[in-house]
């Protein structure tokens, strides 16, 4: 579904992403892991068009999307959520989602009709329900709890009916229990919406617990890729990143 070849991005002299070649298959739930500064977020930024790669190619559903701008890539079906929840704080949850749906329907430049146009409100509530935000529909998003803000961020991406979803640390800043609630929601979404889902995560229990495949980045390069079992057994990963092998025994 997504093929990345030779992707490279330098900041100054430093290669944040260095000749990365990876692919993600349709319908998979994959994790991208790696120590801090491994280039994970840069990797997402490159795929989603936030920054332009110095070299390499990104092909999505057979189409070369390298160098397209953010909006163009989003419209081709790659949605994303952010490490720090990103939404529209002066709007309620419902308004946030209505705005996203209107944008998805190409109405963002519409100067003729009042916002929201027909059907947008109903669809917004549907999306809110997918993530359990329906009871907060009329709450000002700035006043939501941290966890709900992260959910809203994901909901905004989902409103675009993406075929692929990039989640940058969906559980960042959450307590253990809240994390698992979030992960269950994500897993359910992945199953119900037939998504190809890629997420960055630091919690190894989560990574090894739910992903069907794992990519390990280290200093901008791909250190390893494979199923959780393969990654667990990979000596390079163990050495560079996981530390002692028995740490993840029960995952």
């Amino acid at each position, binding site marked *: 579904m997504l093929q990345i070849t030779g992707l490279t991005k330098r900041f100054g002299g430093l290669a944040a992403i260095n000749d990365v070649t990876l692919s993600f298959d349709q319908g998979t739930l994959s994790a991208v892991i790696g120590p801090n500064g491994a280039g994970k977020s840069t990797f997402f930024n490159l795929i*989603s068009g*936030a920054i332009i790669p110095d070299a390499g190619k990104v092909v999505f559903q057979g189409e070369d999307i390298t160098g397209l*701008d*953010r*909006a163009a890539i*989003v*419209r081709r079906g790659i*949605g*994303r959520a*952010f490490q720090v929840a*990103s*939404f*529209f*704080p*002066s*709007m309620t949850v419902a*308004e946030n989602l*209505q*705005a*996203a749906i*209107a*944008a*998805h329907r*190409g*109405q*963002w*430049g*519409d*100067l*003729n*009709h*009042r*916002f*929201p*146009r027909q059907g947008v409100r109903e669809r917004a509530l549907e999306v809110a329900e997918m993530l359990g935000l329906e009871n907060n529909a009329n709450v*000002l998003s700035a006043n939501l709890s941290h966890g709900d803000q992260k959910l809203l961020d994901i909901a*905004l*991406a989902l*409103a*675009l009916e993406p075929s692929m979803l990039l989640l940058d640390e969906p559980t960042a800043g959450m307590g253990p229990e809240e994390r698992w609630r979030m992960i269950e929601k994500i897993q359910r979404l992945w199953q119900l919406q037939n998504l190809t889902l890629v997420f960055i995560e630091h919690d190894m229990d989560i990574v090894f617990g739910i992903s069907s495949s794992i990519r390990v980045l280290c200093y901008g390069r791909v250190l390893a890729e494979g199923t959780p079992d393969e990654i667990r057994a990979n000596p390079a990963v163990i050495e560079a990143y996981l530390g002692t092998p028995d740490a993840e025994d029960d995952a």
Partner: protein
Amino acid sequence: MGRMHIWRDIAIGCLVVAVLAAIPSLLPSKAFQDFVIRCASMALFATSLNMLVGYTGLSSFGHGMFFGLGTYSFALLMQKTGMSLLTAFLLTLLITAMTATAVGAICIRLRLIYFAFVTLAMQMLLHSVIISWVGLTGGDQGLQGGIPRRTFAGVDLSNQYNLYVFSAVMLVVGLLLMRHIVNTTFGTSLRMIRDNETRAAFLGIIVWRVKLTVFVLSAVFASVGGMVMSLFVSGAYPELINWPISGDAIFAIVMGGVGSFLGPTVGTMILLLLNDVVTRQTEYYGLALGLIILGFALGLRRGVLDFITERLGGRPAGGIS
């Protein structure tokens, strides 16, 4: 429901025009009519600026260039050509839109304070051109000699009362149109960009296109304000395109409230009232006005109308950046 809002706004607008039209027969005061005409001109201008500042988060310091362009373009077309008022009006809108497209294309990619200063530089550049192109614009003397052929749809605008009603109609129509714009999905895109430009782009909005569109639209409304002013002062003068005109509009929207649609209109009224009252009371206008501004700014810390809305339990007005 959406439809009802529109009719309600239109009904209020008609009522305002009707009341204003009736006032002079009860209270014949030329000063009042002058006040309303100036208010209409400045309120159109300030509200148009607020589409940029309050709704989109684009703090322009040079919006006065389009107000001034409206006065000069309109006055020049009326004085130097034989076209009708309506033609000159429409052509001025076109000229403003084209200028704003060019200026906007340069400015909108700049960030915050750079955007503010480059828009100001653009205005001052236009001001310099007007001052130095004496043959066309009369230089620092301005375009004197009045506006000929002042008939619009059969109404003679050289009559003070007619111009007064005309200005009120322009204000109401302009406000209704701008209110419609901010209530459309496009208007929502503006708020999305103000709140979180990155997120808006990652939802598929082509940010520069939205910004350029609102820049041009707001310029066009500012130019309408300029034309009303041109009719009022019978010409065009460099003060109408100099930096304080932008300052006045910024002052009006910050005083009135950036978070409320009518904030800039209320702010304009406050500004003009202060102007008229204070100049009559003291020769130290700046001292008095400065102290009043400080009182407002440090006391309320937000616009008057935003303050009232929040006190009445409304939602906190959207922030500006």
